[in-house]
């Protein structure tokens, strides 16, 4: 442990003692934070009172089972190429089907890194429909919007997306309103905030009195952020502070947001475990809606129940820790995952399994 971290721990302990709460729960809502916290063993060096809980920070994990089924169904259509970020491919749908299984059965499913690669692919395969599975939060959406702008510019008519992108702040509201969770502060996501800036979190501080700190990804960043959250609690104030100051500007990246909202508009969205959250999704604006890949399915995408026995929903709300799920570690493992929280490398269950800090 570095000297600076030790210094901070020394400062944290007395503040913690002065706070009258028996337990102080801080939630992080970013998969990269979930990984950084578990990997660094920060939980072990903090005073017992502080509980770090992981929220719905993994975009793959919060994609609704209905959408996963819809994506798998698309891969059955003739003359389609499905393009996706790697994390999506192993997520099981409602009947334990997955894109990976479909691929092994011969469906044309390709992993890409940059959404514009899918536009290039569509240009080269004009006899095919190329569908990109659009998952991801604010960090990822500007690139996806740019791919659509690129397809418009090049008149690539056979490029589609499956719109399943989500924005984080409305989910944070839903989590705060759930009194069962009892969040006392948010470790806000660093790279989402590069795009959004600090403003979208202000309502959490102003309307709900919840301290927020936008944090970087090194262990020290996280320790400093926890210290700042505790100070706010101690001084009985709530505001949004930026700890990840080299990269996050208070106003965020305005140009990137303009690009998002040129293509997308806000809509209600279903989150795994959290249900429908108003204004938390992004759908294509009318003039681009012909690129909505869901329309290629001639049927409605039904909403399907969560996988039986899998408690991802409670994990995503921070209500239980992964080892409290009966399937964790024997029935459900990274090699043979039951739910998405075990599939994605940044899902809470797989992170707990890997670093076994249960």
């Amino acid at each position: 442990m570095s000297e600076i971290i030790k210094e901070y721990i020394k400062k944290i302990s007395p503040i913690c003692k002065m706070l009258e709460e028996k337990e102080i729960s801080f939630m992080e809502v970013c998969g990269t934070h979930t990984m950084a916290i578990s990997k660094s063993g920060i939980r072990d060096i903090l005073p017992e009172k502080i509980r770090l809980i992981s929220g719905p920070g993994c975009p793959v994990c919060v994609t609704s089972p209905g959408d996963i089924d819809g994506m798998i169904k698309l891969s059955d259509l003739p003359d389609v190429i499905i393009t996706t970020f790697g994390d999506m491919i192993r997520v099981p749908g409602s009947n334990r089907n997955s894109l990976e299984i479909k691929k092994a059965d011969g469906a044309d499913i390709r992993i890409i890194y940059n959404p514009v690669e899918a536009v290039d692919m569509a240009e080269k395969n004009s006899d095919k429909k190329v569908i990109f599975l659009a998952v991801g939060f604010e960090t990822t959406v500007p690139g996806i919007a740019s791919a659509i702008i690129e397809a418009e510019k090049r008149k690539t008519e056979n490029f589609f997306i499956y719109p399943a992108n989500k924005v984080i702040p409305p989910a944070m509201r839903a989590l705060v309103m759930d009194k069962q969770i009892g969040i006392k502060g948010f470790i806000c996501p660093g790279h989402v905030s590069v795009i959004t800036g600090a403003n979208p979190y202000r309502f959490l501080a102003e309307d709900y009195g919840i301290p927020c700190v936008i944090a970087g990804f090194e262990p020290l960043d996280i320790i400093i952020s926890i210290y700042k959250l505790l100070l706010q609690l101690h001084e009985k104030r709530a505001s949004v502070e930026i700890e990840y100051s080299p990269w996050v500007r208070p106003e965020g990246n305005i140009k990137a947001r303009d690009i998002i909202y040129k293509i997308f508009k806000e809509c209600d969205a279903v989150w795994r475990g959290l249900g429908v959250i108003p204004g938390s999704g992004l759908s294509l604006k009318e003039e681009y809606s012909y690129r909505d890949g869901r329309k290629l399915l001639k049927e409605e995408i039904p909403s399907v129940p969560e996988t039986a026995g899998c408690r991802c929903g409670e994990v995503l709300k921070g209500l239980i820790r992964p080892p409290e799920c009966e399937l964790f570690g024997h029935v459900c493992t990274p090699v043979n995952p039951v739910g998405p929280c075990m599939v994605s490398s940044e899902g809470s269950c797989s992170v707990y399994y890997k670093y076994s800090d249960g």
Partner: protein
Amino acid sequence: MCLAIPGKVLEINGDKGLIDISGMKVETFLNLLEDVKIGDYILIHAGFAIERLPEEEAMERFKLFKEMEILG
């Protein structure tokens, strides 16, 4: 999934740039940023630069950040 990594701009060709990420040369879209210049530090996510810091500012901010950490 929201992982992003910093790099330094080596070349700019229209909407794209050639970026040095710890010695590796990678092509990245620059369309989400205003006025990118050679030498700027940028933060890259899924093939797109999402934020930039001019070289001097980067040096200053990282230095300031380090000092802040030390002084606490």
